[in-house]
C-alpha cells in the first residue's frame, strides 16, 4: 500500500481497524525518508521510532482508540520531546537534548502518536527559506531547485514529499503558511493561545503558535483538535473548551461574508499570484459567498511592526543561549565574558545575529519609545482596524505569498527581500487571529500558489469551512 497517498484521517481509520499496523506504516515512512534524503527535510529519525510503533500496536490491540493511535508524526526541531535532541537547526544547540515534553508532544503521545523524527528549519525559526539552517537547506518537495519556504520548511517538505502524513510547524510571521504554500499543502496558524507554547523554543512569544501541516483541510482540522487546549504551564494559553473543528466544516459557503481588503487589491497588482487570487474570490462569489469590500488602512505597516516586535522579544528569548548552562560553550573562552562573547559569536548564525542586534536596538534606552512602543501601539491600532472588518465579515481572503517558491539562493543576500516574504502572512500574527493557507492552482511549471484565509480569533472552524469548500470545488 502506498501510505503516502492516504490522508491522515484515512490512515487513522486503517490503523484503528487494524488493517495495517503502526510498525508497518512507520517502517514505510522511515524508508521514504531515507529514499528522499536529498531533500534534507528530516534532521533525525529517532532510533526508538519502531519501538514506539510496536507499543502503539500493542495498545491498539488492547482497544486503544487514540486520535493518532499508531500515526507517524514529524515535529519541527524547536519542539521539545523528552530525551530527544532539539537543536532549532542551530550549531549552538546541536547536541541539546530536551529535558521535558512540550505540551503539544504530550497531547500527541496521549493520543497514541508515534513521533518519528525532527524536521529541518531556519535557525531559531528566523527565515523564510530554511536556508538559514546550520545543517544545510531543505529542498522544495515539488522542485529541488527551489526553496521549501520557511521557517517550517522541513515540516512542510516532509508532508508534501510523503515522508509522513502530518507534521508540526511553528508560525511567528508566516512560518507555517508560507512553506505550506510553497509545497502545495495545508497549514494553519491557530488563534494565539489556542495551542500551548510550553516546551516550544521561543522566538517571539507574543505572536507565535504551533500548528499542523497536512495534505488537506480536513486532516488539518482533525490534527488541530489534538493540539489544542490550554496548559497549566502556559499563562498565555486559552483555558477554554476545544470545539470539534471537523464538524464545523459544513460543505457550504452560502451567505458567508468574505472580506476583500482594498490594500491587498492594490498590493497584488502585477504580482505573480494576482490572477489566482482574483479567481478564488470569483469562485467564492459564484458559489454563494457574499464579497464584502473592506479596509485595514495600516496593512502595509504590518511588516515593519513585526520586524520590531519579533526581534525585540527574540533578543531577550535567546539570551539564555549563553554557553554557561547547556548551549555549546566556545572552547576558546577563558573567562565569563568570553564565554558569552565567543560562544554566542560562534554559535549563532548570521540572520539570528542580525535579529538579536535589531532587537537590542529597538529596546535600548532612547529608542524604546520610537520603536518598540510605537510598534505596540500600531499593533493595537491594527487590532481595532481588523475588528471593524470582522464586524462585517466572517473571513478575510488574501494570498499567502506573492508567488510560487523561489529559487534556492535567490534571496540569500538580500534580507529585506527575504523579510518581504511575510508581506501577507504577518497580519494574522499581529492580530492573534487564526490563518490558514491552502494550495490554489498552479503556474505553468506546475508550482502551486497559496491562498490564505484569516478568520476572527477562535474561529478556526470558519476558516476550515471556507478552505474545504475551495479545496473541493476550485479548479484554478
Amino acid at each position, binding site marked *: 500500500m502506498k501510505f503516502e497517498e492516504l490522508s491522515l484521517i484515512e490512515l487513522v481509520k486503517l490503523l484503528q481497524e487494524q488493517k495495517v499496523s503502526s510498525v508497518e506504516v512507520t517502517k514505510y515512512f522511515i524508508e521514504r525518508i531515507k529514499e528522499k534524503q536529498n531533500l534534507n527535510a528530516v534532521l533525525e529519525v529517532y532510533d526508538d521510532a519502531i519501538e514506539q510503533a510496536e507499543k502503539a500496536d500493542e495498545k491498539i490491540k488492547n482497544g486503544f482508540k487514540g486520535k493518532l493511535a499508531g500515526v507517524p508524526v514529524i515535529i519541527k526541531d524547536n519542539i521539545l520531546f523528552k530525551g530527544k535532541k532539539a537543536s532549532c537547526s542551530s550549531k549552538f544547540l546541536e547536541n541539546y537534548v530536551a529535558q521535558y515534553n512540550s505540551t503539544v508532544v504530550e497531547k500527541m503521545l496521549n493520543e497514541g502518536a508515534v513521533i518519528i523524527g525532527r524536521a529541518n528549519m531556519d535557525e531559531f525559526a528566523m527565515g523564510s527559506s530554511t536556508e538559514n539552517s546550520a545543517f544545510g537547506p531543505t529542498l522544495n518537495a515539488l522542485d529541488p531547485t527551489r526553496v521549501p519556504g520557511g521557517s517550517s520548511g522541513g515540516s512542510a517538505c516532509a508532508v508534501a514529499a510523503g515522508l509522513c502524513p502530518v507534521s508540526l510547524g511553528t508560525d511567528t510571521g508566516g512560518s507555517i503558511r508560507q512553506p505550506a504554500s510553497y509545497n502545495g499543502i495545508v497549514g494553519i496558524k491557530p488563534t494565539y493561545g489556542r495551542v500551548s507554547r510550553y516546551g516550544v523554543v*521561543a522566538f517571539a512569544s507574543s505572536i507565535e503558535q504551533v500548528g499542523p501541516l497536512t495534505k488537506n483541510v480536513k486532516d488539518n482540522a482533525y490534527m488541530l483538535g489534538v493540539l489544542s487546549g490550554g496548559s497549566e504551564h502556559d499563562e498565555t494559553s486559552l483555558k477554554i473548551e476545544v470545539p470539534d473543528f471537523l464538524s464545523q466544516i459544513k460543505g457550504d459557503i452560502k451567505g458567508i461574508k468574505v472580506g476583500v481588503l482594498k490594500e491587498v487589491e492594490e498590493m497584488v497588482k502585477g504580482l505573480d499570484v494576482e490572477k489566482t487570487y482574483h479567481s478564488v474570490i470569483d469562485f467564492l462569489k459564484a458559489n454563494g459567498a457574499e464579497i464584502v469590500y473592506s479596509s485595514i488602512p495600516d496593512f502595509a505597516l504590518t511588516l515593519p511592526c513585526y520586524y520590531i516586535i519579533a526581534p525585540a522579544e527574540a*533578543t531577550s528569548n535567546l539570551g539564555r543561549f549563553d554557553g554557561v548552562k547547556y548551549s555549546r560553550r566556545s572552547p576558546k573562552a577563558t573567562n565569563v565574558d568570553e564565554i558569552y562573547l565567543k560562544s554566542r559569536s560562534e554559535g549563532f548564525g548570521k540572520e539570528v545575529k542580525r535579529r538579536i542586534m535589531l532587537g537590542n536596538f529597538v529596546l535600548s534606552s532612547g529608542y524604546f519609545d520610537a520603536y518598540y512602543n510605537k510598534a505596540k501601539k500600531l499593533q493595537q491600532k491594527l487590532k481595532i482596524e481588523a475588528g471593524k472588518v470582522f464586524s462585517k465579515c466572517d473571513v478575510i481572503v488574501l494570498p499567502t505569498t506573492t508567488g510560487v517558491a523561489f529559487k534556492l539562493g535567490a534571496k540569500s543576500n538580500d534580507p529585506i527581500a527575504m523579510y518581504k516574504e511575510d508581506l501577507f502572512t504577518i497580519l494574522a500574527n499581529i492580530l492573534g487571529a487564526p490563518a490558514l493557507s491552502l494550495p490554489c492552482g498552479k503556474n505553468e511549471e506546475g508550482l502551486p500558489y497559496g491562498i490564505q484565509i484569516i478568520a476572527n480569533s477562535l474561529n478556526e472552524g470558519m476558516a476550515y469551512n471556507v478552505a474545504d469548500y475551495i479545496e473541493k470545488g476550485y479548479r484554478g
Partner: protein
Amino acid sequence: MQDFDIVIGLEVHAELKTNSKVFCSCKNQFGSTPNTNCCPVCVGLPGALPVLNKKAVQLVIKAGLTIDSEINDLAIFERKNYFYPDLAKAYQISQLVRPICIGGHIDLKDKRIRINRIHLEEDAGKLVHSTQAIGTLIDYNRGGVPLMELVTEPDISSADEAVEFLTKLRQRLIFADVANCKMEQGGMRCDVNISVKPKGSSVLGQRTEMKNLNSFKSVYRAINYEANRQIEVIRNGGKIVQETRKWDDNHEKSVSMRKKETSQDYRYFPDPDMLAVEISREDVENIRKTMPLMPEELKKKYIEEYKLTEYDADIITKDRDIIKYFEDTIKLYNNPKVVANWLLTDILSKIKDEENAEIKISPKDLAKILTLLEQSKISRTVAKDIFAKVWEENADVDSLAKEMGGSVDEESLKTIIANILATNPKAVEDYHTSDTPEKVFRWFVGQVMKETKGKANAPMAEKIIKELLK
C-alpha cells in the same frame, strides 16, 4: 560633616515567605542541597514558561498595606535583560511601569519617610566560588525565589535614620508574615543610594550606590563611610562620579565597581509570556482583613485596653513570637495584666540572654497554672514550683497540681498555726512588743508555708495568724 546634608534613599529586597517559587512549583527553601529545588522554569531551559504564584502577589499587597501603599489595580511584569551566570534566562522578571504597590510611608520617631513603590520580582541563583580547581559553580536553588523590592524616596538623612527605618520595616514584614527577613541568609538585602550637598542647599548632589548590604551594621557603617568620603572629595575640590560602589565589610570601606558610562541598559519590556495581573478592591479588602495589628497599634491597644504599663507593652510588642504567646495565653486566661507580669518576670528574664531561645512552657500550661492560682487551688509558691518543673522537665501541670496543690483547709490550718504559736512564745512576745511587728508577722507566715509545704492559702493563713495573735 556639619556643613553638609546627607541625602539617602534605600532599595530593600526581601524574600517572600511562600512555599513555592514565584514562577514555578519548586520549593522556596533556604539551605537545600545545591540545584535540588530546580525545574525547567527556574533554570531557564528552552521552552519553559513562567506561571505566576498568586501567593507572592498577595504577600506584596500585604507588605504594601503595612506601609499604607496604594495597591495598583493592574500590575504588569517586565523583563530586565542582562547577562550574568546566576541569571538563568539572561533576564529577570521584574516590574517597572506598573508595580503592585505605589507610595506609602513609615514614620520614624520624629520624621516621615516616604516610600516610592514596592514591586515583585524573582531572585537570581547564587555563585559558589569553589576552593578546588574546578572554579566557580552555580546553585540555582535561589533562582526564582520571590522577592519584593521596596524603594524609598530620598528622605533619609543619616545612618541612624536608615537603621531605624530598616528596623521598623523589618518588624512590619515579619509581623505581617510577608518575609522572614533573615539577613544572615540573604533574606533581606539593602542597596543604599547616597549623596551629599551643602547644608540647606536645594540642589541634590551626584549620588553613588552601594549594593547588597546584608546587615544593619553594614548599612550604618557604609553610609557613614561613603558620606564622609564624598564630603572629603568635595572639600578637596573634587567631583563625585555617579557610580556603583561595593561595600567591603572587612576593610570597612567602599570601592568603585562600575561607572555610569559603563552601566547596563536593561532594555525592559513587558514579558510576553505573562498576563497582566488584575487586583480588585475586593481582593485588597480581603487581604486587609487578614492583616494582624502592627507593633505600634498593638502597643496602643495593650496600654489602653489591657492597662499594661508602657514599659511592659513595649517589651511584649517587640517580638512577634512573644506577642503570639501573650495573645494565646490571654485567650485561655483573661487577665492580661497577670499574664504580662508572669511573661516579663518569669519567662523573658529566663531567656533574654539566650540565642534562639524558646519558651519552654505552652500558653495552655501557663494559663492552667494561673487559673489554679486564681481559684486558690494552689498557692503562689506552688504555682512557681509547678512553673519551674514544667519549664525544666516538661512536667504535666494537672498531675503536679494534684500532688503539690490542694490547699490546707481552714480547720487544719488553725491547728497548725496554733501549734506554731505555742512552740514559739518568744516570737509571740516580740510581736506584741516590737517596733516592727510586721516583720515578726511575716516570719510567722513563712513558718506556716514551711510547715504546709507551701500549700496554705496565704491570705487565709494571714487572717488566722492575726486572729490568734490578738
